[in-house]
């Protein structure tokens, strides 16, 4: 058929369908251009042009067509691209709407869809029975990974992964509602109208572009006096106009999680030819619903018989949708094979549209009387008690073999399409995900919702409610409102079967497919049972039934029925495999949404970050923080820069950004008592204006964190923590304060970010900061090492610490963060003029190592006690309690020979050990060697003129003076065990 000169397909039926003929779109499929109508799916558009062959199956590479008209499609998976970077594999052709310019390709075939070399597998299929790979490919041993597996991998897989970074963006919305309704068919719409009338906030969701659900296929239902589909659109319009209702189409409820939490994926632009730049491609909705109404309908099953997978064979409801919605006939001479009345209605619609119906083959002896009568009146040949036992046609069905049940006279009927129905499977996926419990409905041969685990109700098809009037009543009640609505449909449906049909029975070798995508046949299920797989989960895993990208929407019930038959057990006893989220596959980008690039994880920057960057700083990641690592001058590499910085700090001074150190304000009358309990040290004697280095252990006695604590007043402490430790230390403190020591009157506040911290270290430190400081005498006498004062710096209220992590005279200037840059600038300007340098974390590490100061998390690792670290002086012997007091006394923590921190000097001063290198006593021992410990810190020390290292060594302090060995890959390095202080052993420099 053509409209305004465009060929919209020879199989379009004039006057049929609901699409607007004036609007067309062009797309290519495997390089050939086609014209579609707006509202077509790729499937309907291809069918309009008579194209049935669209893909190849996973294992046997059999030619496959379009089986369904919806999200359950297992066969018609295609590759859709807008441009090179916007290419999407494994898209269901039955869901993807055509847009102008779409480039569509088939998958899993080489060199072409019609001539696929992989099709050879089909000939070998007798060898490739279920689970065959567990029984072979074992010899020779190495061949699995080198030969067999690569071969299997190349043959397997479906689409080709994208090769470029996705340029599209995605969005997220958290939402809340009183009622979320999944599915906007008759049931969902009715429930929404009912709920909305009560004033409740309602979110109504449907995966299709328009509401209507099963009404898409329908031609005969009347609701509220209107044509069903038209009623649905009107109802949706009414709902959209209500302020308390959100209607989301092209949106899939993919997951029903705990406590009324649901994940929805909304496809925003995939159907558009020219998406707006600001539009996300997809949007994740994370909805917390007080109540959920499941109106997800049901899915038609295919018939399981020999060669039931040829292109041209499809579900009856799909053919009906293509006809009634898209205006496309799926063939010119269509056969029908069914066990259910619903297929009759498809035949009637096709017949009325002028399509020849070759025959309705009904495996039942007694179909519904009404449909039978209608078929007769339409002159359709109905063969009751007959079965289709085989089909023919290489790339598309050309004929079917029909046999009377129990008989042997086969007759071949020519067809160009075969529509099938074995009945309907309620879509209980979301119910099951919500952890509801199913029951087996013997009469309907189906699983239905039974016990609900959440505040949720199922209505309509997914609840097994077939009768329209009953369904509407059920939906009104579910919505909680009271509205009046009447519906009418033409036929009451009966019938349905699960499992293998006649002729695909136990003693055949035919390929009667259950799971199309994975090529699982009825005989595979039987084989699995024969091999001892008696649990449905074993059967699933052994055959891979239901594990393809459609997740068994069509195949599960058939597989189960066949297993039950072979096991001779009732279906409920064989059970059902679990329905897991997502209902249909969800794009990673959607799940990730905003969390990419700069928004992947916050990059925390100090107030002086920009100034440091302007000075050429290289930064390193420390937790979330970006810290200045070193400040190379033009032409300097890292080592040169660090050596210069190290030298300059000790010769003149250095300026360092210490803002990232964690800070906790501990305030209250019981502050000192609280710190007594949380730190190993004692704090009572610390006078206001003084600081002390504190060690924190957990109850197990291992070092947890450390830092300088300054007492500002009797009831106020300024506690510092490691950069990475700040949040967990505060959490740990709050835990003890709130739950173990709630009687203490003390409060904790994180002030890490209140202060910009500028450390000035080196012999000229005092001289550098002196002019900026007011309100405190910072002379050595008045303000000795380990002092703290509140004062002003450049007129700004500040906290000044006399502390040192370098062993030099040092100060840390704390100013409110917004003032940090200005103060830093001024200090640095003066410092630079006095020969000082900026230095980063690397130099800080070297300088502290020269002094033997440890870094918690580098020199300790969560298995180190204060004594192991040489810090037993910081553990109060007088206190009767602190967190860790008991843990420290455990046998293994108190034993001799524990690993202790010591210094290491390489025999050759220029050898710098590798951090993480292992230490042994005898380098010539065979592997596995006995290791004594490892190097925790190691640097070239410009100030010492040699390398230095810190290591954890078993019985380390007793080994001082001994020679140990560090065996590296290419050589062994001899080291002497020393104490940990390498520079200024007397410690005079710190006092300026």
């Amino acid at each position, binding site marked *: 058929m053509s409209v305004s000169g465009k060929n919209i397909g020879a199989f379009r039926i004039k006057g049929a369908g609901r699409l607007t003929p004036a609007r067309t779109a062009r797309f290519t499929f495997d390089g050939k251009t086609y014209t579609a109508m707006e509202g077509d799916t790729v499937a309907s558009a291809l069918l309009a042009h008579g194209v049935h062959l669209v893909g190849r199956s996973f294992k046997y590479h059999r030619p496959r067509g379009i089986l369904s008209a919806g999200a359950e499609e297992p066969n018609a998976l295609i590759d859709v691209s807008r441009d090179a970077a916007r290419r999407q594999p494994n898209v269901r052709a039955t869901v993807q709407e055509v847009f102008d310019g779409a480039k569509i390709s088939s998958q899993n075939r080489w060199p072409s869809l019609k001539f696929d070399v992989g099709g050879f597998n089909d000939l070998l299929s007798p060898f490739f029975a279920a689970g065959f790979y567990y029984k072979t490919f074992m010899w020779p041993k190495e061949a699995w990974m080198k030969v067999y597996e690569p071969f299997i991998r190349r043959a397997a897989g479906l689409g080709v992964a994208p090769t470029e970074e996705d340029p599209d963006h995605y969005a997220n*919305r958290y939402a809340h509602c009183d009622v979320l309704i999944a599915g906007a068919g008759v049931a969902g719409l009715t429930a929404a109208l009912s709920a909305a009338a009560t004033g409740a906030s309602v979110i109504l969701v449907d995966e299709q572009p328009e509401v209507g659900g099963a009404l898409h296929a329908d031609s005969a239902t009347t609701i509220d006096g209107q044509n069903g589909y038209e009623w649905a659109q009107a109802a949706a319009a009414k709902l959209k106009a209500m302020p308390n209702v959100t209607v989301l189409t092209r949106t899939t409820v993919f997951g029903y999680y705990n406590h009324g939490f649901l994940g929805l994926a909304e496809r925003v632009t995939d159907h558009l030819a020219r998406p707006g730049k600001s539009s996300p491609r997809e949007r994740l909705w994370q909805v917390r619903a007080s109540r959920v109404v499941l109106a997800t309908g049901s899915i038609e099953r295919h018939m399981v018989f020999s060669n039931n997978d040829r292109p041209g064979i499809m579900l009856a409801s799909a053919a009906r949708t293509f006809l009634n919605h898209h205006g496309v006939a799926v063939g010119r001479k269509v056969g029908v094979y069914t066990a259910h009345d619903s297929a009759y209605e498809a035949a009637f619609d096709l017949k009325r549209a002028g399509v020849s119906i070759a025959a309705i083959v009904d495996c039942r002896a007694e179909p519904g009387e009404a449909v039978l009568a209608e078929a007769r009146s339409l002159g359709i040949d109905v063969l009751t008690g007959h079965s289709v036992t085989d089909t023919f046609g290489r790339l598309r069905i050309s004929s079917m073999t029909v046999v009377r049940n129990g008989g042997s006279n086969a007759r071949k009927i020519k067809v160009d399409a075969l529509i099938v129905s074995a009945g309907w499977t309620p879509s209980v996926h979301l119910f099951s995900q919500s952890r509801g419990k199913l029951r087996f409905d013997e009469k309907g041969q189906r699983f239905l919702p039974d016990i609900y685990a959440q505040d949720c109700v199922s209505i309509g098809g997914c609840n097994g409610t077939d009768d329209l009037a009953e369904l509407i009543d059920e939906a009104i009640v579910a919505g909680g409102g009271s509205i009046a609505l009447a519906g009418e449909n033409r036929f009451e449906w009966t019938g349905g079967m699960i499992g293998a049909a006649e002729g695909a029975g136990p003693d055949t070798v035919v390929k009667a497919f259950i799971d199309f995508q994975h090529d699982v046949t009825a005989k595979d299920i039987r084989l699995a049972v024969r091999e001892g797989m008696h649990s449905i989960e074993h059967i699933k895993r052994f055959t891979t039934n239901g594990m393809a990208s459609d997740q068994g929407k069509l195949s599960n019930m058939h597989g189960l029925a066949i297993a039950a038959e072979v096991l001779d057990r009732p279906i409920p006893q064989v059970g059902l495999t679990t329905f897991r989220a997502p209902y249909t596959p969800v794009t990673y980008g959607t799940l990730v949404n905003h969390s990419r690039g700069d928004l992947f994880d916050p990059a925390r920057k100090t107030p002086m970050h920009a100034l440091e960057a302007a000075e050429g700083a290289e930064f390193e990641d420390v937790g979330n923080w970006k810290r200045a690592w070193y400040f190379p001058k033009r032409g300097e590499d890292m080592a040169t820069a660090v050596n210069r910085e190290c030298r300059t700090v000790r010769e003149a001074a250095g300026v360092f950004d210490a803002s990232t150190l964690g800070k906790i304000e501990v305030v209250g009358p019981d502050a000192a008592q609280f710190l007594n309990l949380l730190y190993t040290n004692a704090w009572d004697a610390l006078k206001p204006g003084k600081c002390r280095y504190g060690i924190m252990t957990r109850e197990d006695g291992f070092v947890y964190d450390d830092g300088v604590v300054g007492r500002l007043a009797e009831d106020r402490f300024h506690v510092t923590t490691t950069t990475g430790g700040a949040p967990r230390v505060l959490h740990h403190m709050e835990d003890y304060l709130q739950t173990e020591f709630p009687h203490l009157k003390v409060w904790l506040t994180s002030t890490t970010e209140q202060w910009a911290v500028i450390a000035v270290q080196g012999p000229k430190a005092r001289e550098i900061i002196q002019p900026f400081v007011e309100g405190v005498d910072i002379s050595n006498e008045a303000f000795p090492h380990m002092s703290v004062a509140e004062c002003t710096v450049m007129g700004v209220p500040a906290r000044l610490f006399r502390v040192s992590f370098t062993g030099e005279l040092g100060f840390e200037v704390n100013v409110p963060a917004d003032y940090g840059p200005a103060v830093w600038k001024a200090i640095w300007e003066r410092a630079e003029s006095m020969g000082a340098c900026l230095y980063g974390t690397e130099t800080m590490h070297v300088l502290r190592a020269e002094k033997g100061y440890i870094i918690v998390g580098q020199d300790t690792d969560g298995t180190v006690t204060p004594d192991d670290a040489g810090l037993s002086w910081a553990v109060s012997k007088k206190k009767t309690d602190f967190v860790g007091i008991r843990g420290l006394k455990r046998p293994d923590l108190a034993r001799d020979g524990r690993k202790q921190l010591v210094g290491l000097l390489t025999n050759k001063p220029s050898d710098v050990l590798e951090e993480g290198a292992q230490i042994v006593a005898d380098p010539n021992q065979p592997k596995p060697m006995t290791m004594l410990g490892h190097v925790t810190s190691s640097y070239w020390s410009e100030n010492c003129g040699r390398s230095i290292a810190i290591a954890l060594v078993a019985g380390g302090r007793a080994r001082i003076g001994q020679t140990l060995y560090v065996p590296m890959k290419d050589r062994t390095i001899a080291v002497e065990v020393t104490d940990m202080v390498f520079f200024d052993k007397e410690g005079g420099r710190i006092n300026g």
Partner: protein
Amino acid sequence: MAKSKTDASRTLPLAGFHGGSSTVRLEAAAPAQRISLRASADDVPALSGALGLDLPVKPKTSATANGRTALWLGPDEWLVIDEGTVSPGGRLMQAAASSGVPHSAADVSHRNTAILVSGPGAARAINAGCPQDLSLTAFPIGACSRTVLAKVEIVLLRTAEDAFRVEVWRSFSDYAFGLLAEGAQDAAL
């Protein structure tokens, strides 16, 4: 050497940030004085008197008086914001201290910064990363809560039907702003 008495200038963490969409306006709030205030229930009246506003004791509520807003963050915790001054420390700390009752006041004026989110799409923009129900019934004007915005913690205050103040630690503020900018973009669709 004479002491150089320079008044240092402030560099605001969100200086130069702007964004929004047709339905959401995003702007950095002016600097404000803030304290994190902690005290037992018994001492609330004295502190209220000293601060010149009734510290709210009901969860998720705030109180505003005399240019100051106190946000209930927990049963013994308030964030008090004074937009009347840009000078650091000082007044709020002193006011709290004058109460004469045991408490903890910590100056957090510079720890936090704030983003003002306004316009008909404001709630939707925030819901791009915040899991709370921001409907007017659940989160009315004056409601406040510490919560999360995607991967960072924020304190959220609704100042008008379509206006929110998002308090966030300074080093997380560019992340928060970036996320709100994307949320604003999406809220306009």
